């Protein structure tokens, strides 16, 4: 490869107040190469892509060079959310991205359709280009997004950045997409391929660059590399200095929650037992069912089937689990937890109002006492119980949501991404709070996209793949490396 690299990055540094997201990173993408970029959450890979996209400016001293005279013109992106309008057809989406073929102000739909068919012809997908994309399969949508990114790129030379293109695809379709990526490369386009599915990276990329904690770990050819070695590069050998709850194993203690044969969109027959005082982690790649599991248990997923049983109560179908005392702290705080426009106190007590009745009224005195107790317990920082919930920081909002769940005095708590969108201090405080409750006998189920949550809290982790439990990790097996390996393995099945 003697041609100059398509993309050349030298000493790329990006600091945000308080943290360094990227620290003197170097990266080259050769002409006609598929170059993979891997790293865990927080490794800096999304910051790098945002800098390429022009969303962030790098710190002074960094050098980002794109070959060719037209610079950024030669750089195209397909982001994880694809950026498509699902209500519109493939023709419309492509037309919006490039420009409409018009004559005297009128859109020439026939020519537009023809060009769309031409663009998609390369990718061998069977797609009705005039139907809304909402009826297309995920892989078809990805193809349309790629075609839209490449549209109008004469000659095809340039760099296409694919950000987690297979994240929501089932394995068979992911395979198809990889073929398409190779096809794009065959047309002369270089590709920067961002993914955390290591097998894919190994299958499709020529070279791979690994980032960890904002630093470049290595750039290696994929030939001769295996998933284990790659996972080691990502996780590193250093001991993680993060918080560890160090809870004792609890598998011998009574079962607090037993679930049988849970089935839903992503779940294909999951059963599990959760013991008193245990913090059970659920891990898995996106689409494995791990994020859905807690919502199914809480009875919040329509058409889910299966059975859940709390200690001391009869088995209940999950469709009616909403009536059990089984509180859920959702991961999407703004959409599913916070009641905007209401105060801290109102947000906190909303699930336990029945206990605050005094005759026909709501007892303000009892409410105040309850709020005082819980805000002190979970250490909420707010201007007062009457302060609007939206005036609080993310961490304090999360503490209020957690207190709302704990106020129900449950025997089992379901936690999803408990530290998402929370600053490091609050993250530790939340971890400590959960551990404290577990020591007091609370059974906790944690699902998280952030391995840090699982490492900090769990005594046992179930790894899900394709809607089933594929691995169980306990004790010293629960390491960052171990979790990553286990999740990767699920993908090769």
């Amino acid at each position: 490869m003697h041609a100059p690299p398509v993309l050349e990055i030298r000493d790329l540094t990006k600091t945000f107040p308080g943290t360094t997201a990227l620290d003197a990173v170097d990266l080259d993408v050769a002409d006609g190469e598929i170059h993979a970029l891997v790293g865990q959450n927080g490794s800096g890979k999304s910051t790098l892509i945002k800098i390429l996209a022009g969303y962030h400016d790098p710190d002074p001293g960094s050098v980002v060079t794109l070959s060719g005279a037209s610079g950024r013109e030669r750089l195209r992106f397909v982001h994880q959310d694809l950026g498509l309008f699902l209500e519109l057809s493939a023709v419309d989406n492509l037309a919006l991205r490039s420009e409409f073929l018009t004559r005297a102000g009128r859109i020439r739909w026939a020519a537009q359709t023809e060009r769309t068919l031409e663009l998609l012809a390369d990718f061998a997908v069977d797609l009705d280009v005039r139907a809304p994309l909402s009826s297309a399969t995920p892989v078809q949508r990805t193809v349309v997004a790629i075609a839209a990114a490449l549209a109008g790129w004469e000659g095809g030379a340039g760099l296409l950045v694919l950000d987690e293109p297979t994240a929501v695809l089932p394995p068979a379709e992911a395979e198809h997409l990889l073929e398409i990526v190779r096809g794009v490369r065959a047309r002369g386009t270089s590709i920067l391929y961002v993914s955390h599915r290591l097998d894919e990276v190994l299958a499709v990329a020529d070279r791979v660059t690994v980032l960890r904690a904002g630093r470049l770990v290595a750039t290696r050819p994929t030939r001769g590399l295996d998933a284990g070695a790659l996972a080691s590069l990502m996780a590193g050998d250093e001991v993680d200095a993060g918080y560890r709850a160090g809870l004792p194993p609890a598998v011998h203690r009574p079962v607090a929650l037993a679930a049988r044969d849970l089935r839903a969109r992503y779940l294909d027959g999951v059963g599990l037992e959760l013991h008193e005082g245990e913090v059970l982690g659920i891990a898995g790649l996106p689409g494995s069912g791990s994020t859905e599991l807690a919502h199914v248990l809480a009875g919040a997923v329509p058409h889910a089937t299966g059975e859940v049983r709390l200690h001391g109560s009869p088995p209940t179908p999950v469709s009616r689990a909403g009536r059990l005392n089984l509180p859920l702290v959702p991961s999407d705080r703004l959409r599913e937890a916070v009641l905007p426009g209401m105060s801290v106190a109102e947000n906190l007590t909303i699930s336990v109002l029945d206990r605050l009745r005094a005759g026909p009224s709501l007892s303000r005195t009892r409410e105040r006492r309850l709020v005082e107790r819980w805000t002190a317990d979970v250490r909420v920082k707010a201007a007062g119980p009457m302060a609007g919930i939206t005036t609080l920081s993310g961490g304090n909002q999360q503490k209020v949501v957690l207190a709302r769940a704990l106020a129900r005095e449950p025997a089992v708590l379901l936690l999803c991404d408990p530290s998402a969108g929370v600053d490091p201090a609050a993250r530790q405080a939340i971890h400590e709070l959960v551990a404290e409750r577990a020591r007091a006998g609370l059974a906790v189920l944690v699902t998280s996209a952030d391995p840090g949550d699982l490492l900090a809290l769990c005594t046992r982790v179930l790894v899900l793949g394709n809607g089933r439990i594929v691995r169980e990790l306990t004790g010293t097996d629960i390491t960052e490396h171990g979790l990553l390996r286990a999740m990767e393995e699920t993908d090769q099945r």
Partner: protein
Amino acid sequence: MTLQTERPAALPSPRTRSTPRWAALGPRNIGAVYVLGLIVVLFTIYLPVTYPTLATVKQVANGYSITAMAALALVVPLATRTFDLSFAYVMTLSGVTAAHFVVAGVHPVLAMGLGMLAALLIGALNGLVVVGMRIDSFIGTLATGSLVQASIIFFTNDQIVSGVELAGGFAQLAQVQFGGFTGPAVYAVVLAALLWYLLEHTVTGRRIYAVGFNPDAARLASIRVDRIRFGALIVSSAIAGFAGLCLASSLSAGSPTAGTAYLLPAFAAVFVGATQLRAGRFNAWGTLIAVVMLGAGTVGLSLAAAPNYAADMFTGVVLIGALAATGLQRRRVRRG
């Protein structure tokens, strides 16, 4: 963390608030009261003999009491972010139904009961359409409202239901007086007090607001969202039905289009009301304040024998004035 205090652990005691108590009386919180004050002062200067009198107070109270009840009917559904556009037609329906049975010789109380029953049936129909069939409430209740209007025209042949029987006991509902205030004026205040108690001082009221602010979060917080929405639509139909009875009683006739004229004034009042007292929440007293503000001005204009475009112009100007004085609900900073 803009509003975060420096206290390390527990909350400050509930008596210390971020906003001082007097702020509740500031123009931000009760802009409509300030506009009302301005209206009263200006009309008093302009009409010193006729305006600042008890008779004006009575005219505002009596003349706008049915508008007030119509607006109060909307408070509960809107608090759950559910529209009820059918309420105006329900008003017509209950009035026409009761008038029909009174003219047919049925005892007025029984006839009123039948009118209320008709209203409640439409409330249940709304619940079925909006909650059961998951049709957007704006369109769903527009549709049921059209159906109600169609059936009223079908059964009345678009004729006003009239008869001397209506001037008897039935007329007492709206024409009875308590110290110069008519029945509906008193009912509106009682109704507002009941709604205030329900929304501010009961468990159900708190849940109603929670459903309005974030139905998904409310559902996960173990609130039965569908049940609350269904109930809200029943409440609005019940109040609208009662307002319709008062309207028919005050007209001494069952007019097949009587309620329609209340559609827009009621929505205007309830939305202004939501910016008053409990900013961002639809509430009963705020709604009454808004009705009184609009009524005080309109009565002043009629005392001044203003030209026929003045009332509409006044309504438009005052709505904007009240909202400007209160300040638009600012998007607050979500995180520090």
